[in-house]
């Protein structure tokens, strides 16, 4: 399989039956310079640099939900911003397949849209819902001017809101409703790709469910391709078809959802899975204990980035920097010992059976 390796990027379509790509990045790096001299970055001492991303290859396939998972310092938010074009990478290429060469900002923004994490800062408090939608519809000439209002109502209905939302201002809506508005805004331009940066993290549990189902239905009915950034693995498991795990600016593992959760092949992935607080299990699993915290991207460890916290690190790990390599169909891992890790036991599944729920199935 050629789709997720670090080989020099030849944007070939993936082999086999995988759907074609809609978005692909190759060898993406993003470096921030720290320290400002008297004349900004143009003079004076330059201190350390922060490498938020260091050589990431990723592709998003048509119609799939790909989850991007990682903790602080992983670079997932930076990668998301690069994918939508809000941030320029310091190295590497972004291939938006299907886009003409030299396409303008308008065309690019029509293809990829973003939904943000914080429902309270993602909508301009001084612009009404109707104005917001109309502005976008007109700018991109999505529909003729006479149909703008009708289209706005259609968009609202699509996300579960009604016509009476049009004259209202964001402050009149709850968090869950605001996220719906944010999704409606993203859908207004009829994008092919949606990048959702932790869209449900700031919402109450019961509200999350409605937004997750909304994403699911958008995927089914509109054929949207969604890059879903999250830290809640239960949400990820529920919604996505593939999962990519990031650590300190690198992709460390990527596989289909079912595969990655039943057969994780990177110690960090295992640690992430083990740290999920379970609703139905008895106790913590102690399989893969990691100590310490995600280090700052300013001080990247030598060799394998994860080795200082890795419970199975060997000498080699201190010196060799592993690259993401395929280890199975659609499954790649950046661990030197990927093939030798003990078989994943997982949590003793549901020792405590749940009688009430069983009946519903």
């Amino acid at each position, binding site marked *: 399989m050629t789709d997720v390796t670090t080989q020099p990027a030849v944007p070939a379509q993936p082999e086999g039956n995988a759907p074609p790509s809609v978005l692909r990045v190759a060898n993406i790096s993003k470096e921030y310079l720290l320290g400002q001299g008297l*004349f*900004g970055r143009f003079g004076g001492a330059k201190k350390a640099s922060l490498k938020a991303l260091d050589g990431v290859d990723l592709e998003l396939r048509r119609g799939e939900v790909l989850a991007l998972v990682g903790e602080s310092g992983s670079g997932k938010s930076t990668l998301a911003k690069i994918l939508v074009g809000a941030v320029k990478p310091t190295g590497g290429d972004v291939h938006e397949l299907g886009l003409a060469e030299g396409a303008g900002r308008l065309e690019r923004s029509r293809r990829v849209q973003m939904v943000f994490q914080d429902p309270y800062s993602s909508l301009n408090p001084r612009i009404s819902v109707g104005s917001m939608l109309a502005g976008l519809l007109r700018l991109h000439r999505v529909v003729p001017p006479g149909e703008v209002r009708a289209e706005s109502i259609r968009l609202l209905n699509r996300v579960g809101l009604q016509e009476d939302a049009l004259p209202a201002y964001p402050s009149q809506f709850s968090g869950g409703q605001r996220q719906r508005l944010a999704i409606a805004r993203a859908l207004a331009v009829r994008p092919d790709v949606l990048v959702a940066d932790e869209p449900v993290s700031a919402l109450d549990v019961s509200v999350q469910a409605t937004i997750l189902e909304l994403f699911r239905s958008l995927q089914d009915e509109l054929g949207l391709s969604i890059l879903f950034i999250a830290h809640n693995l239960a949400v990820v498991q529920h919604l996505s078809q593939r999962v990519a795990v990031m650590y300190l600016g690198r992709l460390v593992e990527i596989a289909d959802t079912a595969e990655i959760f039943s057969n994780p092949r990177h110690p960090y992935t295992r640690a992430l899975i083990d740290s999920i607080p379970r609703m139905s299990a008895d106790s913590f699993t102690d399989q893969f204990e990691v100590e310490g915290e995600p280090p700052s991207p300013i001080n990247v460890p030598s060799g394998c980035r994860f080795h200082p916290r890795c419970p199975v690190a060997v000498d080699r790990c201190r010196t060799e920097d592993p690259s993401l390599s395929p280890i199975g169909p659609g499954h790649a891992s950046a661990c030197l010992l990927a093939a030798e890790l003990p078989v994943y036991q997982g949590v003793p599944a549901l020792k405590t059976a749940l009688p009430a729920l069983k009946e519903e199935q």
Partner: protein
Amino acid sequence: MTTTPAPTLAPLKTGRRAVRSRSLRPWYRNGSLMAGIVIVGGLVLVAIFAPLLTSYSPITQNLDQVLQGPSAAHWLGTDQFGRDVFTRLIWSTRVDLRIGFLAVLIPFVVGSVLGGLAGYFGGWLDVVVMRLVDIFFAFPFYVMVIALVFVLGAGETSIYLAIATVSWVSYAKIVRGEVLVAKQQDYVMAARLGGFSHVRVLARHIGPNVLSQAIIYAMSDIVQDIMAIVTLGYLGLGIAPPTAEWGSMIAGGQEFITTQWQQATIPGLAVVVTSLGLSWLGDGLSDLLSPDRRK
């Protein structure tokens, strides 16, 4: 799909909801704001209708009626040139208010634009503007103003130029700071991602949210400018006589403080009242426009 589509706006909060808002009361209940509006509004009316409020001329000299005390004919007496003090007081309102407001306009526009662009685009523009700010900020206000007036000569234009040169800096700093914060808001990024141009984003998304702080500052700046004008007038560097102006009235009335004390003190009171009114207006506006009410 197993979820029922949620009814929209079913407990719709009305526009005033915002629990975090400091003033849930409507604007007309805001004490500072009302006091400010009354006083400043009153002053503006006085300025506009000055000729109707008094029949005397503010500049014609009547040397046979010098230094009279308050009477039915001259409510505040006459000055050393026989001019009715009350008339001059009223007519000064025109001068001082007008200059105060206009003097703020140029720094407001220039400073806000430069600061806004610097904050929004960053990079070398930001560096250049900020170094300029640092340079101009180092000059003490009155020294600069007096020096410039000496160089350019007394008169209205000089005052505008002098004040503009010195005070644009504050607006630049304020607006730049606000823009830096506003830039971080997701909705600004969303607007750019939506395909809107920088101009549109600045005008519709950033502008309204940052200018309120500049406006609030402008209120206090008007007070400062009026003080500057009055001071210049007092020092003889301001509006040339015989135009009535509070500062020159105070200077002129100084000599007669023991006999006709009202000549110097009443204009001084006028300045105080104007400043108070503007400050209250600024406070009231600040409550109204402050970030607490944005959400």
